[in-house]
């Protein structure tokens, strides 16, 4: 299995949509074949269309707020006393997370296809919140599917969705988290694909959704590349990009523009959710060697039992609480371009405490996983190594959990 140079990774799948011949594809009910093919034709045309790209860039700049900051975390750098610690503060983006890029592009595509309604799934509530914002902006009716368990633990985002006029539909099946929300959203699309567009909230799902999402979030690395050159004059000789990985949309977007660099110069480190220390459940299929299987239309490494039933996951962060992983990351893992590891709930919380103690930055529980591994590894790295962590979400949505786990003082300052 080989990664091609000078070809965008999203376009490296074969004619059936498989990366590396085995990840991704379109394992979908017959009813969805046509709408997916229509979307593919539209997306393949528009991603080469200058006018469409300009339109995207205009919204990214004026509405999403581009570029998001790239900052040095001086105090943490001093405290760690190893590599330089930097952060790309993607949570600066309108709405507070990277999910806005994919949501914006899906709404632009929906408008072009003449659809009046858009449906989407959400775990932490960010994908749903951003989709509700974008739908409102572009005059589309919006339906968000969200697991009942996630609705209870991510209330601030639920309120935001409702305020934006979206209908939030609780999903009570299965584990009542993201995996069930995605299933229910796909079922809704099966029944309504003639009038409704679907936005899959991450780089998962049938191949075209993986591609659209990766294309959208790549804005992050486009900005970062320019910012690095601004700051250092060129891409640093030792650069390490740390990102949390749930479905994998923010990490893919954070890395994409650096794909062709030698990994000894630009290393990618993906941090999955290891779950509670004492639990056997996790949301880290790459780290813990889960077998390849099919989930939500795509072949991927996925937590499952020997019979092929998808297993329940457990993580403090709703945004990483997904049993599968993007086919793009399976491909990056097996081609050895990226390295994957996991952080536990407790480790993510400790990183959150450390970051907020030293810096004016409040990463949500998802990027806190990446911070943990980055800060641990940075201690042993040389001072000319540049460590960048994607702070892809803001902790505002985690108030309830943080208060419960760490006490009130960690919430007040939000």
């Amino acid at each position, binding site marked *: 299995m080989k990664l091609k140079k000078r070809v965008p990774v999203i376009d490296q799948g074969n004619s059936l949509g498989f990366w590396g011949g085995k990840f991704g594809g379109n394992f*979908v*009910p017959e*009813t969805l074949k046509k709408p997916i093919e229509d979307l593919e034709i539209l997306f393949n045309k528009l991603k080469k269309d200058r006018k469409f790209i300009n339109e995207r860039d205009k919204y990214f700049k004026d509405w999403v707020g581009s570029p998001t900051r790239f900052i040095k975390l001086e105090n943490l750098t001093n405290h760690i006393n190893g590599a330089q610690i930097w952060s790309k503060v993607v949570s600066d983006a309108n709405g507070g997370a990277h999910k806005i890029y994919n949501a914006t592009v899906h709404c632009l595509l929906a408008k072009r296809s003449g659809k009046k309604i858009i449906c989407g799934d959400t775990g932490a509530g960010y994908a749903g919140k951003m989709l509700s914002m974008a739908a409102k902006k572009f005059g589309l009716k919006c339906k968000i599917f969200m697991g009942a368990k996630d609705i209870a633990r991510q209330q601030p985002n639920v309120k935001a969705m409702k305020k934006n006029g979206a209908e939030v539909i609780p999903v009570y099946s299965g584990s009542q988290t993201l995996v069930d929300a995605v*299933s229910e959203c796909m*079922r809704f699309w099966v029944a309504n694909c003639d009038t409704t567009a679907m936005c899959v909230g991450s780089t998962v799902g049938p191949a075209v959704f993986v591609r659209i999402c990766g294309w959208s979030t790549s804005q992050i690395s486009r900005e970062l590349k320019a910012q690095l050159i601004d700051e250092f004059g060129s891409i640093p000789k030792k650069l390490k990009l740390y990102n949390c990985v749930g479905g994998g949309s923010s990490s893919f977007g954070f890395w994409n523009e650096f794909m062709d660099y030698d990994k000894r110069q630009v290393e990618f480190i993906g941090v999955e959710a290891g779950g509670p220390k004492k639990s056997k459940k996790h949301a880290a299929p790459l780290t813990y060697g889960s077998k390849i299987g*099919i989930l*939500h239309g795509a072949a991927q490494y996925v937590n499952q039992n020997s*019979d*092929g039933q998808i297993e329940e996951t457990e993580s403090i962060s709703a945004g990483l609480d997904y049993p599968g992983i993007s086919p793009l990351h399976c491909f990056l893992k097996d081609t050895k371009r990226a390295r994957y590891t996991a952080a536990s709930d407790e480790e993510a919380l400790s990183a959150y405490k450390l970051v907020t103690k030293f810096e004016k930055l409040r990463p949500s529980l998802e990027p806190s996983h990446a911070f943990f591994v980055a800060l641990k590894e940075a201690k042993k790295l040389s001072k000319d190594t540049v460590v960048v962590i994607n702070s892809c979400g803001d902790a505002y949505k985690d108030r309830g959990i943080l208060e419960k786990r760490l006490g009130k003082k960690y919430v007040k300052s939000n």
Partner: protein
Amino acid sequence: MLNPISVAFKKAKAENRPALLTYTVAGDSSKKQSLNILKSISKNADILEVGVPHNTPVADGSQIQTSAYRAIKKGIKLNDIFKIVRDFKKFDKSKPIILMGYYNMIFQYGDNNFLNKCKTSGVNGLIVVDLPWPENKDFAKKCKKKSIYFIQLLSPTTTSKRLKKIIKNSHPMNYFISMLSTTGGKLKVSSKEILKNYNMIKKINPKKEIVIGFGITDKTIGKLKSADGLVVGSAICKEITRSLNSRQNPVTNVSRLVRKLKNKIK
């Protein structure tokens, strides 16, 4: 030897009626009970579809989901399902059985392993909801080698160009999804509209048996009589749930429902 599925269609045609296909989930609400349901409905059903429950079903509505989760909760495994089929075939050897499920379970079992097991247990056909054409080409070929029908799904969104290609490559039986819906949705298009689409498909190759499914109940089945076969699934799953909730025997209730369905298409 002719596949029992084809024999069943012939028999129904000789009686001037569509074949009645039932769908029940293996292991709902227990292994024994699902076997007993199959035995009790086999008198009136021509072809038995046996659902392989999966916990991330992207095309099933709430009734079948409820049945599937109930079976999974009781611990049903693929090997148990093969045993149910084997036990049923001891009871009624000629009645055709179709397994219907999602591809991941077959993939984990291994395509060849799975098909060998199907063959030895007496499975006559397979419907794999999330393995569409052309992705299913290789798998369908493997089925053919074992004389197991791989049943292609056709939907109102399937373009006519695609319909022709699928049917050209298909085995003797195909399944037309009546409307844009998950299983068990309310029939939101008229039976006239469904039959129009059905006839268009039938014209492509009249020799292929086409069954209609999704949204068919005892209320609607009579209006679709001109099809080669009609599938009732969610309505049966719903009856099992209703029986359990009211502490009645699902076996007798489902048996009664299937008899009623049969009378509507005679």
